[in-house]
């Protein structure tokens, strides 16, 4: 009796479901495991174990190319994140709080970058910047990559912040204003602390997306502005060495940390004020 539940699968169904789950996890994680293992292999050919070494990680740390690519990625990621957080939060507030003409259209358009394929977005961006380059005469590089990253990150930030805002009681801001807070104070001391986990989560998500993006970046990048994922992609064409494994592991760890932080941030309650 105890612990039994009418909806819980039993017998063969239960075992099949378990086997399925195990298979899915194996399918997901074996490649990652292989990737990690061979990043420590002392053999130029990926897939041939040549004994343990940290040389590939040292190569990664010492190579000017990878260091420059990493630094490019970090600069672009940080700037794109800050700007998309501000714009994404503002759009979330506008969509959640105000009724205005064309709201539904704006709403749908805002989420377009989430669903349209990266390549489509990349081509759009490339064409746009080519036109813009002729009109305003700016060249491809930091600005174009950062603008593209902002363009797709806003949507993600907006979704996450809106989820948080949607769960917030509208009466709270009214209560603050009833208690002598100005509109700004009500936002600053009540709304902002309550949606802060959403903003942080959205920001970390934006940073992850920016650090990981290959397709769009490759289309809009310019001389001297190779980001780390684009650099890795270029290396593959020259032949795969465990250096790629090492770089991939570093990126994997960094992304995982950011995503976990983002999830934690979305779970915690708002921080204290004043």
């Amino acid at each position, binding site marked *: 009796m105890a612990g039994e539940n009418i909806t819980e699968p039993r017998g063969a169904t239960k075992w099949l479901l378990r086997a399925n789950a195990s298979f899915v996890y194996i399918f997901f994680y074996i490649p990652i495991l292989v990737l990690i293992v061979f990043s420590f292999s002392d053999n130029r050919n990926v897939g041939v174990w040549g004994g343990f070494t940290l040389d590939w990680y040292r190569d990664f740390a010492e190579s000017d190319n990878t260091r420059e690519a990493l630094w490019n990625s970090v600069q672009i990621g940080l700037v794109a994140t800050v700007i998309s957080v501000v714009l994404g939060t503002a759009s979330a507030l506008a969509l959640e709080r105000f009724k205005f003409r064309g709201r539904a259209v704006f709403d749908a358009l805002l989420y377009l970058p989430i669903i349209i394929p990266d390549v489509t977005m990349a081509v759009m961006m490339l064409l746009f910047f080519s036109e813009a380059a002729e009109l305003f005469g700016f060249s491809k590089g930091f600005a174009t990559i950062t603008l593209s990253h902002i363009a797709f990150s806003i949507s993600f930030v907006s979704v996450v912040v809106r989820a948080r805002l949607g769960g917030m*009681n509208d*009466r*709270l801001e*009214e*209560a*603050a*204003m*009833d*208690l*002598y*807070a*100005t*509109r700004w*104070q009500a936002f600053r*001391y*009540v709304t902002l*602390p*309550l949606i802060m986990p959403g903003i942080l989560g959205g920001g970390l998500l934006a940073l992850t997306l920016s650090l990981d993006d290959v397709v769009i970046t490759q289309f809009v990048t310019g001389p001297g502005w190779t980001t780390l994922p684009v650099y890795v992609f270029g290396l593959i064409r020259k032949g795969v060495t465990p250096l790629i494994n090492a770089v991939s592991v570093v990126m994997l760890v960094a992304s995982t940390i950011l995503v976990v932080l983002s999830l934690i941030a979305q779970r915690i*309650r*708002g*921080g*204290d*004020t*004043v």
Partner: protein
Amino acid sequence: MGGPSVTAAVELSGVTKRFGDVVAVDNIDLAIADGEFFAMLGPSGCGKTTTLRMIAGLEFPTEGSLQIFGDEMGTLPPNRRPVNTVFQNYALFPHMSVRENVSFGLRMQGMSKSETASRTSTLIELVQLGGMEKRKPDQLSGGQQQRVALARALVNEPKVLLLDEPLGALDLKLRQEMQDELKTLQRELGVSFVFVTHDQEEALTMSDRIAVMHEGRLLQVGSAEEIYERPSNRFVADFIGQTNLIDGTVADRDTIVLANGSKVAATTGHVAGTSVAMSLRPEAMHIGRPEDIPATHATSSLTGTVTEVNYLGVALVYRIAVDWIELEVRAPTVSEVDRLKPGETASVWWARETAQVVAD
């Protein structure tokens, strides 16, 4: 009544509120005295909460004037009005402790730290939440949350306290306790409480005066007794307490012709030909056999057949079918042999002044 020499705490004149095509509040005139416990009562959607929100400044009237202690409020925002609100479901700030919640208003007004601390402590003691200052709202029971909401509003020493269904979320026992506490608190502070509720019993027991609202209109304002005993129209009679509404037409000043053609005596107050309803409270009627009707009450009686008798301990509730209607009569318990049984012929009669004639 003489002209009021004292300024009303809250005065609404010709206040209308429209949301698009919907008229939420329809041309209301209302004056709430200083120090009064005033209830706004009505079913949901009657405009009572909108009226309260207009006083708070959370909505602005579409038309009309709203004054607080003689000052025209116009479109003054809520943070510049001398009133505070206890919100429905409290709207406590979930990320702040009890102490931070209570002191919020004082901090927003820029009061000094020491003054804020002492006033906050006083209020926390007043609502008996000492020792819970550091807790967050979700660590409090419903009753405690409601006290925090009260303290958070009262710490600002508002000239009028607005309460929107403050007891709605509490269970019955706690509700009754809080009703007493609110009443006591109001008497001690001497501040006007404007209280919105859909619970007529709550309104009747707590308030000095009650405003009954329906579909955006103010139907009647008066003391609990006035509203219960002299309802101004059919809705009020039906909404407040239990009653039997018997349709009829005014024949002359003292006679109503009921739907079955029988004539009963009542002070009609309406011109002949008006369709009215006669409101008879279940406890205001006497019951007996046809031969028991006193001669003096011959024209204020009806005869029918008992359909149901329910025993409630102190009282017996009879249901009596009279031609086209069924009456509910509540009478003191009598021994079983003396009770009328279902199927028997029964008559009811009433003192003429207890029958209230109301128009639609």
